[in-house]
């Protein structure tokens, strides 16, 4: 009787584990399917190319061009990557190659704290520090009149936000390169810098690309902090000092309002679908390169 009970319990738990697994594994597909169905109204009535590349966004008169939002998102993400990428690589190299191990133990909590700050706090900081910094200092420096709420402000705030995520991966990658590889290069008469440049960097390259892909996906999807400083004006930015609008900000600002406009609801779902597709794409790319790094490391 007792034994039977145990076997039954085993079976029940086993079933639940399978159910959980299937649920988790199918979630991305369900999300995708849900968004697709909800935005079907829009996709059915408009040409996909028009939706993606038309500049006109006038939901009231049935014009849904996502181009300004897509361009805004790309600009903001690129600026963030251009700033944080080099900083992360240099920091990771310095921390893993030039400092004592004790320093790394102090660095890690500091980085984790940066990663744990809520994005709305970054947004506030952006409004209080970055926006005035751009309107009062950077803009005049380039002879541009700007309110500060701009693509550049969003890019700057984002760059700070994604540093901890990229940096943590990079440090891990540089730390796991076997010390023997360094010894091999040094013993051939290379200097430490030559060793870093020609050997360690090359060894880490797939990992670096993966880390950047991860940061890119995060930056592209970041909503709150960007929304607070980007200006939220639907136009094609001519320079980084112009205000802009991003896809996540579009959804967050408008969902729940003005849903009486026909197809507006569908349009926002379509924006979400684009976001999901982009982040899925970067995730796949990232995994491809992580796999390659692991294979090379083995």
């Amino acid at each position: 009787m007792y034994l039977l009970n145990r076997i039954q319990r085993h079976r029940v738990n086993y079933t639940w584990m399978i159910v959980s697994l299937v649920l988790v594994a199918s979630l991305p597909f369900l999300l995708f399917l849900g968004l697709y169905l909800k935005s079907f109204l829009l996709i059915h009535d408009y040409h996909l190319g028009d939706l993606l590349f038309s500049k006109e966004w006038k939901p009231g008169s049935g014009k849904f061009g996502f181009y300004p939002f897509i361009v805004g998102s790309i600009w903001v993400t690129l600026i963030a990557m251009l700033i944080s990428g080099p900083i992360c690589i240099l920091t990771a190299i310095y921390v893993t190659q030039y400092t004592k191990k004790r320093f790394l133990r102090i660095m890690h909590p500091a980085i984790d704290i940066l990663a744990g700050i809520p994005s709305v706090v970054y947004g506030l900081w952006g409004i209080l520090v970055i926006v005035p910094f751009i309107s009062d200092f950077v803009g005049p420096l380039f002879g541009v009149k700007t309110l500060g709420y701009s693509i550049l402000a969003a890019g700057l705030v984002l760059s700070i936000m994604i540093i901890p995520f990229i940096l943590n991966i990079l440090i891990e990658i540089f730390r796991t390169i076997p010390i023997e590889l360094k010894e091999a290069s040094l013993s051939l008469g290379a200097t430490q810098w030559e060793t870093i440049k020609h050997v360690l960097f090359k060894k880490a390259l797939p990992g670096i690309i993966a880390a950047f892909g991860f940061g890119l996906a995060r930056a592209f999807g970041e909503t709150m902090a960007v929304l607070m400083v980007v200006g939220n004006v639907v136009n094609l930015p001519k320079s980084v000092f112009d205000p802009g609008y991003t896809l996540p900000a579009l959804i967050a600002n408008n969902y729940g309002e003005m849903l009486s406009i026909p197809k507006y609801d569908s349009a926002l779902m379509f924006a979400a679908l684009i976001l999901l597709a982009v982040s899925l794409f970067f995730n796949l790319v990232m995994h491809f390169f992580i796999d390659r790094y692991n294979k090379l490391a083995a």
Partner: protein
Amino acid sequence: MMLDMEMNKIHIENLNVFAGRQQILKDININIPKNKITVILGPSGCGKTTLLKCMNRLTDLYPELKVTGKVLINDKNVLDPHADIVTLRQYMGLLMQRPYPLPMTIYNNIAYGLKLRGVKSRRDLHKQVMHYLQLANLWDEVRHRLREPASRLSIGQQQRLCLARGLAVNPEIILADEPTSALDPISSQYIETKFTELKNDYTIVLVTHVLRQARRIADYVVFMYLGEVIEQGTVEEVFGNPKMEKTKQYLGGTFN
């Protein structure tokens, strides 16, 4: 005759290495003869590898190690903090326990060291890459796949690539740290045979804990135990007529 100073390539004087409070090497004094194979023999953990790393100062990579004493190569003290260690390291080629090919093509693994040495023209590079791959008996196996990543070679081929890479910086000394321990018997035998050929042109220092390997190829033997040199001499002296009790026990297989 072996201890004639003129014939010696490396002098190690009063070498001590500490890791914190623990002493890893204690008062090492060794003379390593030119154009011979000197085997540093001893059980695992006796400091053989650390001794080898002192010779080309790879100990720099381990900030926890404190090194005192002298390692003289061509009368230059490697351990002198003002020594031009980058140049001094090119006097020595290093072969490690496992092959660590650089993350680049087979060709560039050799060309890397050549470029560091200042070889620039493509023709010279190509000629020398071929030369050193031939010297390590690898050329025939890789001549059609020079542009492939070195990681695709078998582990035995990789070790020969590392040998060629080490020889390409034109060293006078070869430092080898149990270079056959990860290899299959055929590749191991190949490396041993190669060493006996190479000793005509190079001074070879081989670290091993394999008694039979030492007996097969050593000219000069340094026996170490727990960070100290217990006994050193020609292979006939140490293997044929060991003076110290520890050496006798080790050779007799009491411990290994």
